């Protein structure tokens, strides 16, 4: 196997989970439990190498895995541990191939750790990249599917030893529907593995370098805290983002529609934004930021709420009246901003047909 990349050490896991929580843009589930699980494996001698996709042979097979379920179940019914691993072995068998590396569907939130844990159990490396560069709520919302990955065979595994293989699924939307239904029967906590992809395809379609990006963001947060520096400024500098608003939350409204918690947070500006008002649309993740009624950041660009004083990322379910928040925007990767990608992960796909996507940095998107 390649000597490219680097081996994840115990000391990397906390910063990785902090960076992943931040890239979760308010959703994606808490990576704390996954961080502890991986730490246990590392303490027992597991080694996982993070490799660039370039280091794989064109015809090597890469498998995308992630947890599927409900965030609240994730903090109560902790995984048996081998869910994603068993799902991966099942698709390997169904597809008749041997997998050479794992990759994350979603670097944001708890799914950042799932492929790393499965890779540790399988003795495989994990590709430095993922299918979102952030968190999204549904299975089909990956660059892999947007750019033509096959939806089958796929497999879903639970804590008890049940493994369900989806032999033929006509597209990624059907896969989302079937997998979601089965995951609920499995107790809303299951591991999902998707048809292995060839490495040359992964190289073209994965958002590159996101494991390292999460790690570096987390390291900056910890370093800034140790040096008592402004965490928000350090994160903005590390991630190449921009501070869009600072304010206090004056109202949070939530409702449940179609299985998703949708809502709005209203912020009243402080410091440089005193006198301004902002609104953030949320659906598991933060979707759109308006400042004084003008759209300022739109999905798929990343909207991250950090607690103003500590720089701690705030997930959408704990947003509450009175919190002091810095809203920062990070540009999504160009792969998420093509017309084909915006069909699946643009403002319209999340129920904002009146918004035409404008990148937060105003930079035209490379074809």
């Amino acid at each position, binding site marked *: 196997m390649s000597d490219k990349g680097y081996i994840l050490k115990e000391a990397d896991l906390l910063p990785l989970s902090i960076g992943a929580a931040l890239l979760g843009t308010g959703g994606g589930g808490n990576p704390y*439990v996954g961080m*502890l*699980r991986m730490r*246990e494996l590392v303490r027992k001698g597991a080694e996982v190498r993070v490799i660039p996709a370039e280091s794989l042979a064109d015809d090597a097979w890469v498998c995308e895995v992630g947890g599927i*379920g*409900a*965030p*609240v*179940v994730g*903090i*109560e*019914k*902790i*995984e*048996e*541990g081998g869910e994603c691993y068993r799902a991966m072995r099942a698709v390997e068998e169904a597809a008749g191939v041997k997998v050479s590396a794992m990759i994350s569907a979603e670097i944001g939130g708890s799914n950042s750790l799932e492929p790393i844990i499965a890779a540790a159990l399988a003795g495989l490396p994990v590709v430095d990249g993922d299918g979102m560069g952030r968190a999204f*709520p549904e299975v089909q919302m990956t660059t892999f599917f947007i750019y033509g990955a096959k939806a089958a065979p796929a497999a879903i595994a639970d*804590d*008890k*030893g049940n493994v369900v293989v989806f032999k033929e699924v006509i597209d990624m939307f059907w896969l989302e529907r079937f997998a*979601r239904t089965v995951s*609920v029967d499995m*107790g*809303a*906590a299951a591991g999902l593995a998707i048809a292995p992809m060839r490495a040359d395809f992964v190289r073209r379609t994965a958002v590159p370098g996101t494991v390292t990006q999460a790690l570096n963001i987390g390291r900056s947060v910890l370093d800034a805290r140790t040096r008592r520096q402004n965490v928000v400024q350090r994160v903005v500098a590390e991630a190449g983002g921009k501070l869009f608003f600072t304010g*206090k939350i*004056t109202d949070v409204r*939530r*409702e*449940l529609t179609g*299985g*998703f*918690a949708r809502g709005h947070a209203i912020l*009243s500006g402080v410091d440089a934004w005193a006198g301004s008002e902002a609104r953030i649309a949320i659906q*598991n993740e933060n979707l759109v930021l308006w400042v004084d009624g003008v759209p300022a950041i739109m999905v798929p660009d990343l909207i991250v709420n950090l607690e103003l*004083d500590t720089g*701690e990322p705030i997930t959408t*379910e*704990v947003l*509450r*009246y*009175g919190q*002091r928040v810095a809203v920062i925007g990070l540009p999504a990767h160009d792969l998420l901003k093509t017309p084909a990608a915006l069909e699946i992960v643009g403002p319209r796909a999340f129920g904002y047909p009146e918004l035409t996507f404008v990148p937060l940095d105003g930079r035209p998107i490379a074809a």
Partner: protein
Amino acid sequence: MIRIGIDVGGTNTDAVIMDGPRVIAGVKSATTADVMSGVVNALKAVLAESGMAASAVDVVMVGTTHFTNAVVQRRDLAPTAAVRLGLPATASLPPMVDWPEDLRASIGNHVYLAHGGNEFDGRIISPLDEAELLGIADDIRQKGINTVAISSVFSPVSNECEKKAGEIFAKALPGAHITLSSEIGRIGLLERENAAIMNACLRDLSTHVIEAFRTAIAEAGVKGRFFLTQNDGTLMDAAFAEKFPVLTFASGPTNSMRGAAFLSGVADAIVVDIGGTTSDVGSLQKGFPRQATVAVEVGGVRTNFRMPDVFSIGLGGGSHVVETEKGVKVGPTSVGYRIVTEALVFGGQTLTTTDVAVAAGRIKLGDATRVAHLPADLVSRTETRIMEMLEDCVERSRLSPEPLPVIVVGGGSILVNGPIGGLEVIKPNHFAVANAVGAAIAQVSGEVDRVYALAEMGRDKALDDAKQRAVEAAVAAGALRESVEIVDVEDVPLAYLPGNATRVRIKAVGELHVG
């Protein structure tokens, strides 16, 4: 009803006597190394000051940091077996996996995973295996362990597994102390389990401490009933507290905020409690402290207790005052309880905030001539710096632009003069012993935290069911049924789950039932 409230802090043991809503007397006395003689001293002093007979006292309410400190200092903790029901789920993370090494070692690292547990909707993960549990009980007995904490996946939804396992262990290990996680915590397995294990390892100590409090109260001649305050500012009777010592964690800040609300008659305010070394600032909503929403660590262990959302800064009556190149520096270092010997006005050599308050003529204390030499400019710059520090943390705790008053309590309140950040300042009578007042006026509560499928029963019916359970829990804890009110309702829809699954949390509070 005549009540005595006692707050046993790290530095001072404060006591008040109240007749209904009226504070008759309040005293501060030093906390002693053995704690109990300090409690006896405080009781005797407050009775003497009030001129009342000990026999007239109906109830005694005690707020204590004893159990928090035992965990923080890793002392007097019993070897404990942690048994979790949930296999095959949860196998990836055994109990106590995220505990500090030294704390885990101090209670023995005896962890067991067994079958059992529930799914989010109440289905069984795997059936409870009695033979498996009896095998574990055997092992526990052979290790000579007498304390067991039992946790089960989704026990806040169904506590059947924990109850059955508890019965099996009680039978197999006669006389063992058994704590069930569903009796203590909320959804969030690791945090709830952590609370249950901490509770279990404090059980030997709680038996001893509750008995010592009882003896101290009897020694002072008081025959009334005896309660402890818990982290939400409500009461548990001594027998209950003995079983659930972990519930006393963080009762101190809660008591002082509740006391501030009571003494000032203001229910919505910012409360600043200035002690000897630190100031705690929190927000009061409808007479109760606003709760923190993030996981709270105690002694390095994550819990999901409802703790008051309090912000602390290093400013108190004993804070060091130092002139630096960048101007005057106040705190965070402090002479603490040694203020009575080290502050200038008390004959010491250290310039403290209290000396500055005396020099400014804000209060008469000690020997004022010993601070007469302080330059007027230094005094005024120090006072300005103190007010800036307070203004900053009050601003952090403010939830709305509306001009809420600031209630200032605690022994260090002498440092505050005039409005803070343009907000009106209230210094109520008896401000120095607000925490003991908070203990004395504490009510009784009951709480539920459950997941309901609203598609099946409808929102109104689900809320009614949860409210009924909360009321029953409050009455079971000692509340007068007629007085019980629902004070907090929160329903959060759960993403991705079918049947409009909604997590409902409800809290009911009532007056203490005496007699």
